[in-house]
């Protein structure tokens, strides 16, 4: 059994950095506010959500059909289509193509799927140099950390952190934390690598079954360098990225960037239909647990996700604890419901890293019932016997006491009983975690029940 990641401990570490947490909360909440403003400019927003959700549900429930249609149309465009059952197969397919082209260096734009597959270390171990072209993702690569946010991967870092990192890795002035200077320094450093790369890799935001084309949305245009400079372009596409027709795209494109950053559209929305002249285009369609999830009545809706990050921006727990606290490829509310599907034992604590406030469900542009799924994952964790010792013991004792009125009411004052026992019941922990930052309530003279007996039951 894998050791579980401990999001509570990691989040506490981030909060202890104070300036990091407050800056992170402010910036990420700012994205949520921008989203609100952008959505206010689209009166039919709720109808769009409904349509987007229905299109995704329709596609997912006819996925075999649309995948085959995509393969057929893409092949007609002279795109090479590969299939991968899992991460290992994906990485092997990619490596084989790269190897056949004698690729030594590769530039890639951000792809959560390639993160999910652990592709970069796999290729590096086989002698291929991999460079991230997205600035935030490059920062994360140099830090040897996964992205902390699916849209803004290094949002948890302060400018000064980036200055220190660049000083160490690319020799900039550690005292210069001007964002423009830092971005320019990285540009100068990365440009030569971009120009000499033998291959470019991207993900895809949408793949269109009807046309066999796919769409990549970025704000830096970095995917376009990867797709246009080197002669070989490989795109990794999760099978849930399919949509039926080109005209369905309009709905999703209108919602994606408004939900993510509050801008009407990403700076670059690039459509790829077959290889460019003289080039070669490969597409890898990846399952990696998606079809298992599709078979789960409680959790298949998570496959509708378009990776906008709105649920992260609105999540009060994510904003306080930061994305790295989840210890997984996907963080925030969407991570809480996706990660346990990959490794329940490892990610068993994630469903508890939530106050269940429900805001994620209301911002989600494709209407995923995120909050309900978090709740349901808790049941799965408990039913599989994977609850932490503290929770298991606490809940069983609490359940027994609350089920027996005489036991519960026998204590002279329930309050005293509760104060003394509840924290230990809940945690099996000699330190009282409530009292670290908060006062406990005073115990009243009598309980409501006692008051009621005295005042309403006495003749």
């Amino acid at each position, binding site marked *: 059994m894998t050791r579980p990641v401990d999001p509570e401990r990691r989040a506490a570490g981030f909060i202890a950095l104070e300036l990091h947490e407050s800056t992170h909360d402010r910036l990420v909440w700012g994205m949520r506010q921008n989203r609100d403003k952008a959505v206010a400019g689209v009166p039919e927003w709720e109808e769009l959500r409904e349509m987007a959700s229905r299109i995704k549900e329709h596609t997912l429930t006819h996925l075999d059909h649309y995948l085959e249609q995509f393969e057929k149309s893409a092949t007609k465009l002279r795109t090479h289509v590969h299939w991968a059952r899992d991460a290992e197969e994906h990485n092997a397919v990619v490596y084989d193509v790269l190897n056949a082209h004698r690729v030594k260096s590769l530039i890639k734009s951000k792809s959560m799927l390639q993160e999910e597959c652990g592709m970069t270390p796999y290729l590096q171990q086989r002698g291929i140099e991999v460079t991230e072209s997205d600035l935030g993702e490059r920062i994360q690569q140099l830090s040897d950390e996964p992205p902390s946010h699916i849209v803004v991967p290094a949002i948890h870092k302060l400018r000064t952190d980036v200055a220190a990192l660049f000083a160490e890795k690319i020799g900039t002035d550690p005292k210069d934390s001007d964002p423009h200077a830092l971005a320019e320094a990285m540009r100068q450093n990365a440009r030569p690598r971009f120009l000499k790369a033998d291959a470019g890799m991207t993900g895809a935001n949408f793949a269109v079954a009807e046309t066999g084309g796919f769409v990549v949305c970025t704000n830096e245009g970095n995917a376009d360098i990867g797709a246009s400079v080197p002669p070989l372009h490989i795109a990794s596409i999760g099978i849930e990225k399919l949509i039926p027709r080109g005209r369905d795209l309009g709905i999703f494109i209108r919602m994606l960037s408004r939900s993510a950053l509050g801008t009407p559209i990403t700076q670059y929305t690039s459509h790829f239909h077959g290889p460019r002249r003289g080039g070669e285009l490969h597409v890898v369609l990846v399952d990696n647990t998606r079809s298992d999830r599709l078979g789960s009545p409680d959790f298949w809706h998570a496959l509708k996700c378009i990776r906008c990050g709105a649920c992260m921006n609105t999540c009060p*727990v994510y904003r306080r604890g930061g994305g790295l606290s989840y210890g997984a490829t996907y963080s925030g509310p969407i991570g809480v419901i996706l990660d346990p599907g990959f490794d329940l034992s490892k990610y068993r604590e994630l469903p508890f890293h939530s106050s269940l406030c429900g*805001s994620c469900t209301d911002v989600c542009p494709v209407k995923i019932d995120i909050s309900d799924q978090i709740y349901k994952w*808790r049941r799965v964790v408990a039913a599989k016997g994977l609850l932490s010792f503290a929770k298991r013991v606490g*809940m069983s004792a609490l359940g027994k006491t609350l089920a027996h009125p005489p036991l519960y009411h026998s204590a002279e004052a*329930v309050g005293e009983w509760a104060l003394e026992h509840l924290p230990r019941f809940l*945690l099996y922990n000699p330190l009282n975690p409530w009292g670290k930052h908060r*006062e406990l*309530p005073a115990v009243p003279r009598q309980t409501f029940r006692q008051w009621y007996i005295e005042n309403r039951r006495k003749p």
Partner: protein
Amino acid sequence: MKLGLFIPCYIDAFFPEVGVATLELLERLGCSVEYPLDPTCCGQPMANSGCQDDASATEALFVHCFQDFDTVVGPSGSCVHHVRFNLDAIEQTPQAQKVRGRTRELVEFLLDDLKVVGFPWAAFPHKVGLHDSCTAVRGLGHARPSERVNEPYFSKTRDLLDKVRGLELVKIDRPDECCGFGGSFCVTDEAVSAKMGYDRVHDFHRHGAEYIVSADMSCLLHMKGVIDRLKLPMKVIHIAQILNGGPP
């Protein structure tokens, strides 16, 4: 109409005055109210931790105690939400379905069922910050969630408070941000929960609130813990206490 009063465990233990205010208010409005002595809890603490097996006996007890009432009213959004939407660790007998369908949260009961037009006895000349709890807003639909920017704002809690003389509501920066209580989350995720509580309380404090009012005492329990630790000049108060004519 036979009305059963449901006082959640933590109100019974820590805030009896909220139970008293709820009871007196309902009586004042002409309801004949009975408080069965046996229920302990609705099962939510266990169920929220995923422990259906541990929740079932408590849920069965809840249904058993309230099955003979026409309506069950409780002054707590999150407990009522559990009963109505998540009380499914036990078999869904006709009794269970009946109790679940008839359990009402105090605010919706006053506004939607009793259609109370005024509280002539109630005056509260204070600056008050309104905390609509997450389960009330997004679970029970008692207010428009801030995410739904294109729909007109409403809040049932505010509608009731508008009927109280002298009460002035203050505007805050993040109207429906979670206070971080979240049941056992408040101890298992201590650092995040406490930080959320601090931020929430500071938002009210910055905007001059003397009181934080809510229909959910669990959120207020949490924020009170923060206020007391930070020694801020603020108090928490349940809406039943205000509507019943102010704190004793």
